[in-house]
């Protein structure tokens, strides 16, 4: 049985932080009125999570629901369950003006772990990565060097990075270079 393959097929690198491509994850872009009751129902149906507030991400293991903009959420669910979850969203928002679309294959996800993972990001994105400025439960959309990216901190303290699939190798190379042993900065805790 053939199976879907992620962009880098699980590439990883161990420097002063560890960089891993985490493989395919179900992702659904949901656009609509985030404040509506229907959206609350749709969020629950798709992920079992509450609608996140501005720049928040709700986390439950591998399931997550992230605020992407004032009318957009990103639901992260098991890859194989995307169609079912979209069907659940469709049901919850039936008759409403909304959009729910599968973007699972359009993305690559990396997990950055290790004590200095924050410094890896701080070399590539113009974002204050100190823990008092960016913590658990927040998501940041920005650029990483020359491409768009988003990241958040998960419950284990690891940083999850999402980018477009076509630039997965570029982003992996960026993270790898930034995480090389000896390249620690020692500015962020």
């Amino acid at each position: 049985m053939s199976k879907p393959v992620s962009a880098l097929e699980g590439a990883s690198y161990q420097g002063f932080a560890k960089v891993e491509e985490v493989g395919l994850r179900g992702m659904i872009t949901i656009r609509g009125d985030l404040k509506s009751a229907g959206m609350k129902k749709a969020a629950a149906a798709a992920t079992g999570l509450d609608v996140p507030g501005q720049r928040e991400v709700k986390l439950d293991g591998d399931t997550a629901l992230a605020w992407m903009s004032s009318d957009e959420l990103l639901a992260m669910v098991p890859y194989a369950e995307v169609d079912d979850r979209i069907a659940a969203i469709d049901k919850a928002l039936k008759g409403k003006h909304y959009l729910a679309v599968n973007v699972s294959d359009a993305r690559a996800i990396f997990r950055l772990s290790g004590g200095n993972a924050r410094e890896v990001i701080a070399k590539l994105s113009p974002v204050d990565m100190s823990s008092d400025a960016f913590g658990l439960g927040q998501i940041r959309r920005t650029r990483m060097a020359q491409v768009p990216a988003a990241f958040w901190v998960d419950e284990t303290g690891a940083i999850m990075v999402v980018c477009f699939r076509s630039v997965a190798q570029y982003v992996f190379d960026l993270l790898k270079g930034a995480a090389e042993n000896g390249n620690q900065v020692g500015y962020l805790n």
Partner: protein
Amino acid sequence: MLILTCPCCGVTGEETEFHAGGEAHIKRFGPGSDDEQFHSYMFAKENAKGVHFERWRHNNGCGKWFHAARCTTTLEVFGTYSAQTYEPPKEIKDKISARRPGWSWREFA
């Protein structure tokens, strides 16, 4: 390099996260407009020295457009506000009046 605050997602970010989109509060003239109206809409742009209103997009971020009230000489940012409006909100205009008494820009003052 400027810093701007996106009123949509609340991020205060550096200019590289944003994309400048020219003059704000422009009224579109489509079919049925005369040449003067269309020319003015399409090509005649404010080139303010001082208070200016611009459109920006948080393109490396939430992707939303917004408006910014800025001073083109000192680069002071008086405020940013929704793109879904036809004129600057009162609190922004008041703030500009406090900083630049007697200012005017197109029909606004």
